[in-house]
């Protein structure tokens, strides 16, 4: 046990990840004229307005018909288009799972499924809109690349990466304004990012939980606990090496995601570690419940998705690790 010198991640502003998508989409649209965008009556929420304004003939307003949108996107790839679909995460996945499965994944179409308002931080609209299963839905589809970005800049970069990548992608982002700290951090699909170095525990985080884990790390450091912090933005394919290397050092792992603990990133990691190196693990995730209305901040607290929860669970996890090793 011991503290370490922490890297300092600062930010100039809080800004939503979906704006990172909107800006990125406009940028890639300027670069590649084969990029087209589709939206199901949520252009403003998805921040697709600028793309629409700049490329009206490459923007397709589908109406409130998400299944049709996925099929049309699949068809658009025939003839060389690169379609980006935009709607809320629930309507991007659960509503259209079979359409994605057959017309996109099994057909191997180059469609980018871009999903905003994922998770509980969607806030006041409540449970029908707060999908906490979308990562699980998309990770089960053979051939699907699954990405969950953590801030504006990572989302913008991911949008570029996704545009240049050949194959179906699920790109998940959110609604609330969050610290934009990763301006200097490069983004590569499938490559985890080591944000802090430590020895006592591995903290793997994705999406909005990345900032929370950095906050938790600071608090834990003060308590004499040093953490390896890894940002896994690509849920699939999973960067197993960066995780394995870390847990070999720390012997304990805590996974943090805005998702049901059932079926999410945490289970993916438990699944592969159980084959390679079984490791004591703790889950910062929703506890198999639906969400509810409320402000993002209050909901993150109530559903155990904030830095305080990470701190608590980390302390307990380390206790458990020590018990196990002293047996």
């Amino acid at each position: 046990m011991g503290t370490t010198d922490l890297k300092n991640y600062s930010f100039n502003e809080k800004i939503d990840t979906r704006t990172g998508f909107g800006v990125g989409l406009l940028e890639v649209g300027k670069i590649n004229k084969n990029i087209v965008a589709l939206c199901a009556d949520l252009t403003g929420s998805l921040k697709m307005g600028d793309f629409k304004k700049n490329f009206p003939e490459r923007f397709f307003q589908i109406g409130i018909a998400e299944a049709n949108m996925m099929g049309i996107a699949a068809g658009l790839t025939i003839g060389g288009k690169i379609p980006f679909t935009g709607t809320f995460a629930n309507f991007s996945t659960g509503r259209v799972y079979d359409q994605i499965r057959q017309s996109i994944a099994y057909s191997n179409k180059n469609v980018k499924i871009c999903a905003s308002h994922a998770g509980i931080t969607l806030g006041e609209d409540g449970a029908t809109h707060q999908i906490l299963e979308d990562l699980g839905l998309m990770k089960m589809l053979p051939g699907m690349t699954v990405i969950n970005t953590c801030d504006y800049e990572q989302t913008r970069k991911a949008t570029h990466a996704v545009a240049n990548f050949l194959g179906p992608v699920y790109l998940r982002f959110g609604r609330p304004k969050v610290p934009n700290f990763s301006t200097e951090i490069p983004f590569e699909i499938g490559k985890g990012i080591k944000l802090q170095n430590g020895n006592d525990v591995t903290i793997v985080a994705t999406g909005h939980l990345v900032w929370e884990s950095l906050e938790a790390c600071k608090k834990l450091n003060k308590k004499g606990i040093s953490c390896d912090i890894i940002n896994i933005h690509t849920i699939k394919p999973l960067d197993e090496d960066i995780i394995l290397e870390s847990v070999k050092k720390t012997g304990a792992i805590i996974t943090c995601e805005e998702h049901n603990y059932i079926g999410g990133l945490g289970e993916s990691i438990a699944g592969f570690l159980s084959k390679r190196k079984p490791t004591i693990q703790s889950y910062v995730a929703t506890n198999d419940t639906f969400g509810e209305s409320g402000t993002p901040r209050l909901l993150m607290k109530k559903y155990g998705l904030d830095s305080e929860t990470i701190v608590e669970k980390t302390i307990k996890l380390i206790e458990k690790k020590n018990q196990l090793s002293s047996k």
Partner: protein
Amino acid sequence: MFINFLKKKSTQGYNLIQNFTFTIVKNIKKLEELVPQVRRDILRMVHGVNSGHPGGSLGCAEFFVVLFFHVMNSKNQFSMDGEHEDLFFLSNGHISPVYYSVLARNGFFEISELSTFRKINSRLQGHPTTHEGLPGVRISSGSLGQGLSVAIGACLSKKLNGDKSIVYSLHGDGELQEGQNWEAIMYAGSKKVDNLISTIDYNKQQIDGSTEDVLSLGNLKKKLESFNWIVFEVDDGNNISNIIEVMDIAKKETKKQKPIAILLHTIMGNGVDFMMHTHAWHGKAPNDEELKNALSQNKETHGDY
């Protein structure tokens, strides 16, 4: 102040006015008097949490008032099964503010509970749900396009139970772009589900703009008729007398081997001048200034929550 005490219903053990003889309020004036109060509730709820959907809610205020205070035959005590009483399903769940206001004003729960709308630990979720046990709600909605199927299921259940009451439902016009509706429309038309009266909030607006611009519904009456529905059209769907009249006629057309649709031409944002005739207030809350202005246009007739 008379109306909110007409019926007190709850599953939670509030004081119930027992043996209350069910009274259909025929007095159009009194229904009209309630409308500005419902509008105030909607505006104040949405303003209070700076989120929610005032536009569609305001456009349907008259419809909800007529439905709950004039049309529907329901019991004093709320039960999920709703046997031998008329049922209502809200498919376009985002207009929950008007639903909650009218449920509360109709005695399903305390009016004061409106203040919890969209706040954490509330029964008044952003979209109506059974999950928190709010009396009056029998299905969760919010994800569009699912309510008509559910209403049909309730119709079939009533038929099996020899229950003669009627099932009502409400749907957005933009919502009809969802394919599940057309599965349900085909089913109800072909299988002669004739204890169903489904109203469309035909305000010609949705989130991204007018329905005409987003994805035109074309001739909706012709569409529904081609699916074997009886269709009534109400040109001014914000007029209480019109709504009463069409609902009375529609009721008489039930049990005639066809489902019934009412195309209710409404004005989104009705009753607040700067919110009317635009999609801009579909899902946006007024700020303090705007609220004041909006409230000044609607008299407090039954007491704010």
